[in-house]
C-alpha cells in the first residue's frame, strides 16, 4: 500500500455521506430546513420590515396579523423579527461552540488514543470529571461564575460537549493506530503530529461530523436554556431563551409570545437532529442510542 492511498477511505466515506444524505429523505429534509433557517437569520433585515428593537407600546401583545406575522411582545416589538435575530445568536453560539468542541475534543481524543499510557489516563480522567455533572449544570456554573457574555457562553457550551467528542475520537484512534498504513507512516519517520493529523483524523471525520450535527442541536438548546434562566447574551440583543422567558409572564393572556420563539428553537434543533439521525443510522447502526 502506498501512502497516497491512505486518504482514500476517508474521501470515499465523505462522498458516501453526501450520497446517504440524498438517499435518506428525512436527512435531506432536515438539511433543507436547516439551510433555510440559516439563510433566514442571515438575511433577517431583508426579510422583515421591522427592527428587532423597535418598541410600539400601542401594539403590545398582539396576536398574528398582516403587519406582525407572529405577533408582538410586551413592548410591542415584532416577534418574527426578533426570532430571526435571536436565531442569529443561537446559531452563532451553537455552531461556534460545537466547532470548537469538535476541534479540541477530537484533538484530545486522538492524542489520548494514539499516545495511550498516562497521557490517555490524564485526558480521559479530566473528561470524566466534566461528564460527572448533570448536563446543563456545567454550562450554567461556568457562565454564572465567569459572567454572561458571548465568549463565556461559547466557552461553557464548548466545555459541556467537548468530552463527548473526545470519547468518540479516542476509540477509533486506538484501532487505527494498529493499521498498516499508520505503521507504514511511522516506519517512514513521520512525526506523531503529522500521523495524527494526516492519517488518523481524516479517517474518523465521517462519524465525528455526523455526531457533530446532533451535538450542535444540543448546543443550540443549551444556549436557549441558559438565556431562559437569565444567563444569555445581555439585552437588548434578542435571544430565543429570553423571549420565551419574558413571554411566559403572559402565558394566560398572550401565550403566543413565548410559544413562537419556543417553536423556533424546536425547528432548529429538529432540523439538525433529522440530519444527524438519518446519517448516523446509515453509517453505523451500532451508534443508535
Amino acid at each position, binding site marked *: 500500500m502506498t501512502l497516497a492511498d491512505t486518504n482514500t477511505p476517508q474521501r470515499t466515506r465523505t462522498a458516501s455521506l453526501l450520497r446517504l444524505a440524498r438517499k435518506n429523505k*428525512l436527512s435531506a429534509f432536515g438539511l433543507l430546513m436547516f439551510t433555510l433557517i440559516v439563510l433566514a437569520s442571515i438575511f433577517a433585515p431583508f426579510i422583515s420590515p421591522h427592527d428587532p428593537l423597535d418598541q410600539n407600546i400601542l401594539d403590545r401583545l398582539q396576536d398574528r396579523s398582516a403587519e406582525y406575522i407572529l405577533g408582538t411582545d410586551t413592548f410591542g416589538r415584532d416577534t418574527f423579527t426578533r426570532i430571526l435575530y435571536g436565531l442569529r445568536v443561537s446559531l452563532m453560539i451553537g455552531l461556534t461552540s460545537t466547532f470548537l468542541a469538535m476541534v479540541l475534543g477530537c484533538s484530545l481524543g486522538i492524542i489520548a488514543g494514539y499516545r495511550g499510557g498516562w497521557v490517555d489516563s490524564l485526558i480521559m*480522567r*479530566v473528561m*470524566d*470529571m466534566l*461528564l*460527572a*455533572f*448533570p*448536563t*446543563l*449544570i456545567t454550562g*450554567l*456554573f*461556568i457562565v*454564572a*461564575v*465567569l*459572567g454572561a457574555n458571548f465568549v463565556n457562553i461559547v466557552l461553557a457550551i464548548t466545555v459541556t460537549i467537548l468530552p463527548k467528542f473526545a470519547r468518540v475520537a479516542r476509540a477509533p484512534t486506538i484501532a487505527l493506530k494498529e493499521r498498516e498504513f499508520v505503521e507504514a507512516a511511522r516506519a517512514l519517520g513521520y512525526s506523531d503530529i503529522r500521523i495524527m493529523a494526516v492519517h488518523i483524523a481524516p479517517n474518523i471525520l465521517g462519524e465525528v461530523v455526523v455526531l457533530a450535527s446532533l451535538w450542535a*442541536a444540543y448546543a443550540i*438548546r443549551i444556549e*436557549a*436554556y441558559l438565556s*431562559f*434562566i*437569565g*444567563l444569555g447574551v445581555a439585552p437588548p440583543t434578542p435571544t430565543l431563551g429570553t423571549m*420565551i422567558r419574558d413571554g*411566559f409572564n403572559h*402565558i*394566560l393572556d398572550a*401565550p403566543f409570545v*413565548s*410559544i413562537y420563539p*419556543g*417553536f423556533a*428553537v*424546536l425547528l432548529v*434543533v*429538529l432540523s439538525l*437532529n*433529522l440530519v444527524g*439521525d438519518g446519517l448516523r443510522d446509515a453509517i453505523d*447502526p451500532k451508534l*443508535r*442510542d
Partner: protein
Amino acid sequence: MIGFITKRLLSTIPTLFGVLVIVFVMIRVAPGDPALAILGDNASQEALDAFRDRMGLNDSMLVQFGRFLSDLAQGSLGTSMVSGKPVVTSVMEVLPYTLELALGAIFFGIIIGLPLGIISALWRNGWLDYFLRVVSLLGLSFPAFLTAILLILWLSIEWRIFPVISSPTGGPIDRIYNLILPALSLGVIMVAYIMRTARSAMLDVLGEDYIRTARAKGAPGRRLILHHALRNALIPIVTVVGLYFGLLIGNAVLTEIIFNRPGLGKLIVLSLNQRDYTTLQGLMVISAFLIVIVNLLTDICYALVDPRVKLK
C-alpha cells in the same frame, strides 16, 4: 454487594476530588468580589472586611481549600454566604422534589416509551413505525420549556385538569397530583429516548437465535415478545435511563422554574441571582455526587436484569 458498592464509591474518589478542585478554583478565580456582590456597592469598608473575614476569603487559596476539604470530610459544605444557612441543609431540603420529578419523568418515559418502542420494532418499516420514529425525533428535539408551556396551556388552562403552579405540599395524593404535569413535561424527552432505544434493542433481540429457539418451542407471539425478547431488550434500556439521568436533572432545572416548583433548579437560580457562591459550590458537588450514585444504581440494575453481569 456491599463490597461492590464500597469499591465503586472508592473508585470515583479521584474523579470527585478533581470535580472539587475545578469547582473550588473556578469560584475563586472568578472575576468580581463576592463580598461586594453580596453586600452591594454601597457597603462600608468595615462591613466588607468583616464579611471577608467571616467567610475566610482573606486566607490563602490553599488554606481555604484545606478548610473546604476538612469541612467536607465532616459532611459539611459550608454555610451560605447570604443566608448563613448550612449548604447541605438547604440542598437536602429541595433535593427530594427534584428527585421525585426526575423519577416521575422516568416513570412516564417507561410506561409510554417502552410500549411505543416495542410497537415500532414489531411494525418495522411500516407506516406506524415511520410515524413513531418521526414522533420520537420530534420528542427529543422539544426544548424543555416548550413542552412545559404547551402542557400548561392545554392541560391546565384549556382543560383545567392540572394546576398551573405545582406546589408539592399536602398529602401524598395531592403531591402526586401536583407532580403529574411537570413530570410528564420533563418526561417527554425520556419517552423519546426510551422509545428509540426500545425499538433498536427489540430489533436486535428479535433477530437473536434464542428467539428462534423460543418460536421452535411453540411459544406464542405475546410470550415471545414480552418474556423472551423484552427481558433482553431491557439491558440497553437500563443504560439509557442511567445515561440520561444527568440530562434529566439539567432539564429539571427549567421545568422547576416554569412550574414554580421548589427543587435544585430554583435553588440554583436563587444562588445565581444572589451570587451565593458557597451554595453554588455545594450544589455542584452534590449534583456530581448524585450522578455517581445514579451510575452505581445503573450497574446494580444491570446485575438484576442480566445474570451474566456479576457485581465485583
